[in-house]
């Protein structure tokens, strides 16, 4: 468990390079800064200045070493390293609202941008014109697209949106790839086809629901692509399995809403959000249940000192309880909401290290999640 504070401003978004020695992040302004790890220190080696608005999404393609960034200026740039300098190429997204999130596809021949224009732009490189072209997925999205994740087959794309739904689209571009084979999510995948759409609320039956749900903040496919998890603003986390999409397992959590989620094994997820610490969730495919697996943050050991009578009455006066803990500050490593999680080592099937960045300008990376992978990889799907 280690924590590094980069700045006092929130980190809007971040992305790691292939060998995890460099991180590209946006320090809540129009630039992208690239830091290189030097022993225990981080040194800023590049500043990428091109955007006219806050950079809302960064993705670093591991194999082709290109960075794609998108921002509130309605543009996206693809950066390539020429010698020692990163050179940008503008991509016309044809959107009239801010771009919110961006993601390279697994084969890195296209990328998807979610925006406030209620659509997703799928961009690919057209060889003849030496130019990035984009196609739009519009229907049936009715509000801002907040999060995106690609399926390992390079065609399916999951999108979480402010219209309270999580959907799986086909982003098949015939100019750059072969027709994809069938998957558990469906076999017919023309461009823009919706293969899955979550109901208004993941919780089935019972009193107190049936409509509502909240903005879908984070989506993530599992390593195999057979499972899809999403977190929503109504403090729920839900998982759907391709092929069995009539039953969605979800958990209404007792915490504040979670903003980002990632699978770390086929059966477990790590998520984080407004509560400032990452938490583990475990999915049981046979029972179709999601359960809370515990906090993944080691709080600082606060010294337990005795509480004086005066303090007791003061607590009673101020907070109506004469509790022992004074709770002067948050016990977690992060002191403000966590907005993004990225897997560092092990991929989404056997993650051993993951990293979180948040509004406090700090980055935390956690090791030793292997104890979770050990107990759960024995589950048969």
């Amino acid at each position, binding site marked *: 468990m280690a924590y590094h504070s980069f700045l006092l401003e929130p980190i809007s978004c971040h992305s790691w390079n292939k060998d995890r020695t460099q991180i590209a992040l946006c320090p809540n302004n129009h630039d992208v800064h690239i830091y290189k790890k030097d022993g225990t220190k981080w040194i800023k080696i590049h500043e990428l200045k091109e955007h006219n608005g806050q950079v809302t999404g960064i993705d670093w393609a591991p194999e082709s070493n290109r960075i794609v960034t998108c921002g509130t200026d309605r543009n996206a740039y693809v950066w390539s390293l020429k010698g020692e300098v990163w050179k940008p190429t503008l991509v016309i997204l044809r959107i009239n609202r801010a771009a919110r999130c961006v993601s390279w596809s697994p084969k890195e021949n296209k990328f998807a941008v979610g925006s406030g224009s209620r659509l997703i732009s799928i961009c690919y490189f057209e060889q003849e014109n030496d130019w990035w072209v984009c196609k739009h997925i519009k229907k049936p999205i009715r509000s801002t697209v907040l999060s995106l994740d690609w399926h390992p087959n390079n065609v399916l794309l999951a999108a979480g949106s402010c*219209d309270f739904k999580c959907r799986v689209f086909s982003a098949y571009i015939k100019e750059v790839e072969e027709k994809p084979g069938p998957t558990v999510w469906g076999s017919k995948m023309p461009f823009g086809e919706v293969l899955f759409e979550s109901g208004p609320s993941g919780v089935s039956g*019972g*009193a*107190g629901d049936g409509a*509502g749900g*909240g903005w879908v903040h984070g989506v993530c496919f599992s390593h195999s692509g057979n499972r899809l998890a999403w977190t929503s603003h*109504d403090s729920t986390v839900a998982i759907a399995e391709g092929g069995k999409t009539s039953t969605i397992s979800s958990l209404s*959590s*007792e*915490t504040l809403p979670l903003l980002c989620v990632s699978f770390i094994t086929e059966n477990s997820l790590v998520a984080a959000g407004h509560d400032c610490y990452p938490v583990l969730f475990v999915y049981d495919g046979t029972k179709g249940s999601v359960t809370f697996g515990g906090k993944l943050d080691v709080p600082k050991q606060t010294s337990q000192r005795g509480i004086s009578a005066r303090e007791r009455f003061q607590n009673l006066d101020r907070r109506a309880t004469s509790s022992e803990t004074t709770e002067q500050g948050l016990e977690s490593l992060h002191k403000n909401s966590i907005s993004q999680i990225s897997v560092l080592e092990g991929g989404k099937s056997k993650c051993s290290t993951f990293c979180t960045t948040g509004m406090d300008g700090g980055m935390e990376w956690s090791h030793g999640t292997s104890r979770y992978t050990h107990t759960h990889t024995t589950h048969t799907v």
Partner: protein
Amino acid sequence: MSKNTVSNRFRTVDVDEYDENKFVDEEDGGENQLGPDEAEVDSLIRQGNLMEALQAVLKNPPINTKNQNVKDCAEGLVLKVLSAFKSSDVDKGVQSLDKNGVDLLMKYIYKGFETPSDNSSAVLLQWHEKALSAGGLGCIVRVLTARKTV
């Protein structure tokens, strides 16, 4: 100066209604939702069986219906049951509910806060404290983010 500026009628036009991209919630047929059964709940209160009354009043919540009367009736009934509990029994009452029940109870509590009467807020605050320790902050978040509520 053109004469058109004399009239102010354009100020009463609701521009949002004409926005073709306006988000419209899905309509769920809720016309047959009648809310909890008043007779059943009343008889259980009279018998002194408050736990059962609590379970009964949380059935059939009028979430999808557009009929305001049904919603008001349900809220009044819930308040009656909650007030009938003794302070020491509130905790047991909350423990007897499942997760969805706690969420629904919290919705009714906040609805009750909206229109306070003589003693209602005190009673509701007691229930709120217990429901909060059972459901956590997530429970309150779900009340705030629910598009259709009781």
